[in-house]
C-alpha cells in the first residue's frame, strides 16, 4: 500500500467531484496536478514539440468535456487521464503515420523515448546498465516500465492504461524485473557476455 498515492487518488477524486459541481478552484488544482504527468507522457512519445503541445491541450480539452463521465469505480483520476493521453498519442501517431493502423505498430513510440537519450547522460554505470537492458526489452514492456516509473503508477494502474488484465501485467512486470536482476548480477560478475547470452531478450 502506497499511502502517498492513496492520498493523491483521494484528493484528485474529491477535486474532480467538486469541479463537476462548478468549483473552479478544484478544477484549477486538479489541472495543476495532472498537467505535469500528462505533458511528460505526451512529450516523451510525440517527437515534435509543437505536436506534443497540441496533443497535451487536446487531452485536457477532452478531460474537461468528459468531466461528468469519470467513474471512480473504474480507477483513479490519474489513470483515467493518462488513458486519455495514451489514446490521444495513438491518434496523433496515426495521423502522422497513416500507414500504421494497428496499435502494435505504434508500440515503439508508446514505449517512450526517455531511456535512450537519458541513458547517454547518465554517468552512473549501474544506471547505464539498467538503461541498456531495458532498451532491449520489447516495446510493450518498456511502455509498462515507463508508466510504472516515469508516471509513478501502480502495476494495476499500468494495466488499466494499457488495457491489460492486472494479473497479466503483474506477471510480466515481475518476470522482467527478475530477468533484469539476473542480467545485472551476471554483468557484475563479467560472465554475461562471455556465456554468449542475449541479455534481456523478449520476456514473453
Amino acid at each position, binding site marked *: 500500500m502506497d499511502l502517498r498515492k492513496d492520498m493523491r487518488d483521494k484528493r484528485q477524486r474529491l477535486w474532480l467531484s467538486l469541479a463537476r459541481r462548478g468549483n473552479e478552484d478544484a478544477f484549477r488544482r486538479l489541472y495543476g496536478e495532472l498537467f505535469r504527468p500528462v505533458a511528460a507522457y505526451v512529450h516523451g512519445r510525440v517527437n515534435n514539440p509543437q505536436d506534443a503541445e497540441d496533443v497535451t491541450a487536446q487531452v485536457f480539452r477532452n478531460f474537461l468535456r468528459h468531466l461528468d463521465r469519470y467513474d471512480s469505480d473504474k480507477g483513479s483520476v490519474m489513470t483515467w487521464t493518462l488513458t486519455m493521453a495514451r489514446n490521444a498519442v495513438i491518434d496523433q501517431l496515426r495521423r502522422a503515420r497513416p500507414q500504421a493502423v494497428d496499435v502494435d505498430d505504434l508500440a515503439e513510440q508508446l514505449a517512450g523515448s526517455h531511456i535512450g537519450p537519458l541513458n547517454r547522460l547518465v554517468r552512473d554505470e*549501474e544506471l547505464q546498465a539498467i538503461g541498456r537492458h531495458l532498451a532491449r526489452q520489447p516495446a510493450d514492456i518498456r511502455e509498462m516500465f515507463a508508466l510504472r516509473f516515469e508516471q509513478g503508477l501502480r502495476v494495476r494502474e499500468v494495466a488499466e492504461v494499457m488495457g491489460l488484465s492486472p494479473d497479466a501485467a503483474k506477471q510480466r512486470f515481475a518476470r522482467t524485473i527478475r530477468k533484469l536482476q539476473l542480467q545485472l548480477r551476471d554483468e557484475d560478475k563479467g560472465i554475461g557476455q562471455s556465456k554468449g547470452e542475449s541479455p534481456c531478450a523478449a520476456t514473453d
Partner: protein
Amino acid sequence: MRGDRLNRNLDRLYRQPVGDLQQRQALEEELLHRYRQTHPRHRRWLMLLNPWNKTARFAVVGLALMLLAVGACTTETSTQIQAGQQGHIALKMSGSSADKSLEFEAQEQITDFISSQPGVEELNVSVREFIDDAGTVTADISLMIWGENLDAEALSAAIQAEFPHLDAADISFEPLSTTITESLFDRFGRQVFNIETEGSSAEEIRTQILQQLAAEGFTGDAQVEVINGDGTQEIKIMLEETIED
C-alpha cells in the same frame, strides 16, 4: 542487485525534469474559460465545500458558528430545577378556643420563622384542620417554601430547635421540583452567570450584579456597565480573574 535498489535506480532513470513547459499557463487560461462556459456560475456556490479553499474554510466555520448561535437562541430545552421544599407540620391542638387562638399565634410564629431562614425567597402557607372521633383537632400546616438549594434537614432541625413544643409534631419535607423551558442560550447564561437583577437604576443593578458575582465565589475584578436606552437596557459585564497554577 536487490529489488528495492533496482526500483530506486529505475525511479532515478525514468524521473527526469520535464522541459520548459510554458504551455501550462496558457492552456490553464483556455481551460478555465471553457470551464466557466460549461459550468455556469450558479453551480459554483458549492465551492464552499472545497476544504482546500481558505476563504471557504473561514466561511463554513463562520456559518456553522452563526447557525449554532441562532440555534442556541431559538432551540428550547427543558430543565428540571429544584425550586424549594414542600413541608407538612401536623400539629395536635386542644379543643378550647383560647388554646386555639394561642396555637394559631404559634402557627404564625412558625411561618414567620421559616420566612426568615436563609435562602427562603417566598413562603405559601395553608392550614387545614382535622377532627377525629375522640374530638382531637389536628392542624396540618402545609408549607410551600420557595428558594434554591434549601436543606430540608437543616430547616426541620431549625424549626424544632426554635419551637421545642413541636417535638411531638410530625414534620416532613419533600423537594419542590419544577420544569422550566428556556432557550439553550438562556440556560447557558443562567448556569454560567446565575445572575438575576431587579431594580430600576443603573447603580442598583450594578451593585446587585457585583454582589451576586461575589456570592458565586468570583474574586477577580469586575466592571459592570448599565446602559439604559429607549425602552431597552443593556448590561455589559467584564470579568477579569488571574488563575494561579
